[in-house]
């Protein structure tokens, strides 16, 4: 092949071609497009590093560069051997290059974010871990001082709680990224859900000296099919952020509503979290839902966080089929809006029939709350007379007395402007008589105000925000309580005369559980593995054990198999005995596996004893 042949081949090509003698970097031919593109020659037209790389490739000393920049365009240099020649074909790939470059940048940024995240995480984990180690040393060094030990343990509890939440977030994100997360939808009551959200968020807001406002919208349905754990996680993420990024004296508002959906069995859950905190820049708003991103501002840097919360939130919301939006302005605050579709769950309302036709007297200064309460009472089949102040209340009591009307219950707000309720309520109690339940509608922790209000004649409370189920349950409970007042006064968890079987392979854990549960008054018998637990259960008389606490990871036979084995036994209590999983495997799948194996409940380790007690209590109540 000679130059003539090369010209025949390449002269008609549209792409620029420069031909070299193999092993030499001097061109022997260039077609017209190449001549037009490279007036001073190929190597002169390229940036120096690219020219150098290409020259070496032509000379057989290396690979050609992926991209060559010529003028405003990007070319891919492909070397095609042709006999003793080497043709350098320049494909214009500007579009491709740009796309590749964007992806590359993103990858670099993500990598950088992950690097930053890892470095921060290692710091974030190290900090509480350091505290735990240090405090443990302090406690060990002061075993003779119970105050010092207690102080250290309390601090260790806080630090370990923080570390646990960090780890949970990281693990969640990793599961989301690998697509291994799934939702566990089951019938749930939104009253419970909201209550659990509020008992976490309110103290956080109070701790930050923020005003916390709850605005309840309509509740089209209280019982929904949803993954309560994940939904709570989403809502708490938004609330925690709002609280975290709102300075002292600010305000955080939560709007919560269940609106009717497009189909009769569907609803929309609308949640809005608004704060008047530091807000976000426009730039950061575009990546607020990206993982590992945290805004880089001095005010933000001072606040602890992984940068994963919002990404997890968005992924979970989308997994639920919903959407999340954000509006924000620096210095003005932020508004996060959630809208998630759910299916209604069947609700059993039959037991509320007993309330039909009853009359309730309501004292409530807030018109909106009063309307909500009245609507709920009426939807339960009760009639309500509303007084907005003590004046109206006395009028209603007088009217009832003089017209021969009798009320079945009295509901009162906890606060009323211009009235010292704890002084006024005893007078109301005297007029109403002892037989009418007097219930307080309150968002406060009842245990904190119980003494004060029971002295004023109040029998009990109904928690706010108000839900139909709670209102009905409260009214029913107190209607029944008047017959058996002792029941209402029973302690939250009394395990006296109960016997539990504890399957736990770790000796230390066994000892801890024995000690803590023993304080509640129950007897505990221990099994060191699943097989032993099955044998002990099998060898006992029916009804001997009130419940089984089952570790999952155990030698010989794990907890899941042991549970299946117990449930499969041919004895009257095999199906009924409550079995509670106690495991560090906290993922929803683990929960599902436990439940699928026949367990009744699942408690994550490290154990929160309040939760252990409340779970045991709820399973044993009525047995």
């Amino acid at each position, binding site marked *: 092949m000679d130059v003539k042949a090369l010209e025949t081949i390449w002269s008609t090509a549209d792409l620029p071609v420069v031909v070299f003698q193999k092993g030499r970097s001097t061109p022997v031919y260039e077609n017209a497009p190449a001549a037009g593109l490279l007036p001073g020659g190929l190597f002169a037209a390229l940036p120096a590093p690219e020219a150098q790389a290409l020259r070496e490739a032509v000379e057989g000393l290396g690979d050609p560069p992926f991209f060559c920049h010529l003028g405003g365009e990007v070319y891919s240099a492909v070397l095609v051997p042709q006999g003793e020649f080497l043709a350098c074909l320049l494909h214009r790939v500007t579009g491709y290059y740009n796309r590749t470059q964007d992806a590359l940048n993103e990858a670099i940024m993500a990598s950088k974010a992950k690097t930053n995240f890892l470095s921060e995480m290692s710091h974030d984990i190290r900090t509480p871990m350091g505290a735990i180690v240090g405090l443990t040393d302090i406690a060990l060094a002061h075993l003779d001082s119970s105050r010092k030990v207690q102080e250290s343990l309390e601090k260790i509890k806080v630090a370990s709680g923080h570390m646990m939440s960090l780890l949970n977030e990281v693990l969640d994100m990793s599961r989301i990224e690998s697509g291994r997360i799934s939702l566990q939808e089951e019938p749930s009551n939104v009253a419970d859900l909201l209550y659990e959200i509020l008992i976490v968020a309110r103290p956080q807001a109070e701790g930050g000296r923020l005003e916390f406002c709850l605005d309840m919208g309509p509740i089209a349905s209280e019982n929904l099919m949803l993954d309560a754990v994940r939904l709570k996680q989403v809502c708490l993420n938004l609330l925690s952020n709002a609280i975290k990024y709102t300075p002292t004296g600010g305000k955080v508002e939560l709007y919560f509503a269940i609106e009717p959906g497009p189909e009769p069995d569907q609803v929309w859950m609308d949640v809005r979290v608004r704060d008047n905190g530091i807000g976000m820049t426009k730039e950061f708003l575009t990546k607020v839902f990206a993982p590992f991103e945290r805004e880089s501002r001095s005010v933000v840097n001072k606040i602890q966080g992984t940068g994963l919360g919002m990404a997890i939130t968005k992924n979970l919301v989308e997994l639920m089929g919903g959407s999340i939006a954000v509006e924000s302005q620096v210095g003005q605050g932020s508004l996060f809006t959630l809208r998630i579709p759910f299916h209604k769950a069947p609700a059993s309302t039959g037991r509320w029939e007993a309330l039909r036709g009853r009359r309730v007297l309501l004292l409530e200064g807030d018109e909106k709350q009063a309307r909500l309460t009245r609507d709920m009472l009426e939807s339960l089949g009760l009639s309500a007379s509303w007084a907005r102040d*003590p*004046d109206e209340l*006395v*009028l209603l*009591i*007088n*009217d009832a*007395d*003089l*017209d*021969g009307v009798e009320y079945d219950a009295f509901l009162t707000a906890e606060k009323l402007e211009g009235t010292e309720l704890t002084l*006024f309520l005893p*007078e109301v109690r005297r*007029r109403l008589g002892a037989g009418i339940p007097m219930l307080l509608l309150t968002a406060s922790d009842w245990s904190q105000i119980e003494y004060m209000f029971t002295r004023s004649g109040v029998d009990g409370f109904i928690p706010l925000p108000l839900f139909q189920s709670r209102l009905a349950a409260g009214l029913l409970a107190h209607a029944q309580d008047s017959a058996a007042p002792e029941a209402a006064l029973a302690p939250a968890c009394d395990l006296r005369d109960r016997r539990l079987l504890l399957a736990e392979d770790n000796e230390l854990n066994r000892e801890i559980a024995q000690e803590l549960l023993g304080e509640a008054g129950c007897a505990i018998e221990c099994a060191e593995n699943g097989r032993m637990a099955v044998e002990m259960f099998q060898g006992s008389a029916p009804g001997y054990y009130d419940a089984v606490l089952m570790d999952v990871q155990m030698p010989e036979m794990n907890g899941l198999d042991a549970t299946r084995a117990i449930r499969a036994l041919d004895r009257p209590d095999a199906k009924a005995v409550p079995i509670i999983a106690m495991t560090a495997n906290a993922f929803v799948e683990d929960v599902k596996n436990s439940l699928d194996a026949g367990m009744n409940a699942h408690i994550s380790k490290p154990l929160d004893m309040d939760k252990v007690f409340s779970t045991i209590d709820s399973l044993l109540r009525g047995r």
Partner: protein
Amino acid sequence: MREYQEKYIRNLKEIFALNAAPEQIPQDVEAFARERRERRAQARALAQENTELLRQELFPLLDDVVSASGEEIASLEDFAAHLVEGASQLDMVLSYYLHNALLVYARRWDRRDMLIRELYQTAMALFYVEESAVRVKQYPYRTKLAMLFGEAASYIKRYDEIEDQETRGYIHRSMANLALVYNQFTEEDGRRKLTAIRRSLRILNDPAYQEKSPDLPWDLYIYKSHQERTTVLGLLRAGIADPQMLGEVMESAGYVYERQRESSLARGAEVSLRWRYAYEAAQYHCGVRPLSYLLGWMESAYMDRDEGNYSDGGLYQNMFLPALYAVYLEENPEFQAKKKEVLSLMYRRISAYVRGMPDNLLSEHTMQRLLGCLQSFIEYPDGVQEKGFLLDLVVCRNLDVFVASRMTGEVARMLVDRALDTDPAYLLGALGCETAEALLARRDGLRRFAMEAGLLHNVGVFNFSNLLRRLGRSWLEEERELYQFHVDAGMDLLSRSPSTQPYVHAALGHHRGYDGKTGYPAGYDRSQDPCPAMTDLISAAAHLVRLLEDRVFLFNQPMTLDQALERVRAEAGTRLAPKAAELLWDLRPQLEAYLKDGELWAYQEAFLLLKGKCVWQGGS
């Protein structure tokens, strides 16, 4: 009654007499001033004695009233009844305390008849206690009243179990008196009142009840209920009404009118103007007659007046009818211009009527009628000015308050002079002056303003003159609270008309501490006061005069000028503005000179005004 109880009541009556206005305007002012001082000293000593009597004899018993013997309970009941003694209401707050204690006793020992009676009596005592507050649109005991009357009335359910007819009477009276609780000028209260009366009348008119308790005065109960229902006319005047309200009020007005007519015919007299008015007003409000007719009827009734008649009826016709007339004009502005001449004539005639009063009509009743006029006063730019009406006719009718206010005005005037001489900029904002030069150029205006503010700052007290005149012991909490409303009452009176509005801040702020923490009312806001320094001066002047001799709180011991100034200095920055306290301190020589005869001059001025021998010219 126990000996201490009899002694207490004797003392109260004596104090009431010592506090009475003179039956004639004295010729010898100096002798009168001396005698008045002595009377105050006597009253003060009696009040102290009464305080001790209660502290030593009554309160230990009330502390453990449930353990009291039957005899002790009977003496308490007797004592409580004597404290009210007909309509004289010697000590309503103590009466309330006693009934409340008896109520506790009745509850504790499950004495049902006594309980019903005491619920009623406690409520009635409280109702009278609240009356003076209601006049200034405050209702501190309303819920409690409703609770007490309501509980007593609720025994209607157990009517047949109660054999004592008198106790049954208390049930009916309580049920009817529930209507008394609802006396706010609102549609809601009007409806509540009418509901209570409707319910009560249904039972009162039920023959079954009348047969069960034949000895009860059913006609009187029914008549009183109808009478109470006519008070809703006030609401109708304000345009708040519906057909049921209108119908019921018309029915009651007709009922009362007919009963009055029958009774008048039997006596050979005319139906009183009050009930004729109620009847005509009901006709108007129910749409039978137009407003022009009612106004015409009122004008004609007014023209029939006798300006020499100072009986209750005469006071109603000469003073209260114009006040009612003004209410209609205020609510119907289209008539205000049309009837300007008529109303102006009425105001001028009221002035003449009041000036012509016999010397012994320094009565509380006259004062209440005058306050009634002020509460609906319409001030025309070129007509009778409310400020003049107040200064010429009203403030002089309570001699003690006038003297204290007049002295306050004089001290305030001295303070203004002193401030202008030493630091005129201190008064920036007063009379709209924004520079020291402007203030100095308006020295006379500022001095006059200070004097008039001194005279007017306490006009709210007139609403409480009943309470003050009867005060015969240390104050109880209820009285203290009630009395504090006098600043709101003053503000209410002064804020009606352009001529009196500039004095509102002095009325509202003269008991409020400079530090914003002490005194009352909390609602006084210095930032809303165009010249808080002027209010500070009035407040300081009033405070000094009170320290020298408190003519209201008789149990406060008078101080010498030096003691008072020491107190002023100690209270600088808390009760008083530091600058005002400093100015007062600097005025010591002038104050000493003025105080020699200041009180005497004040009495002289009051007597001249009362005799109608002069009009207010801005002081001597």
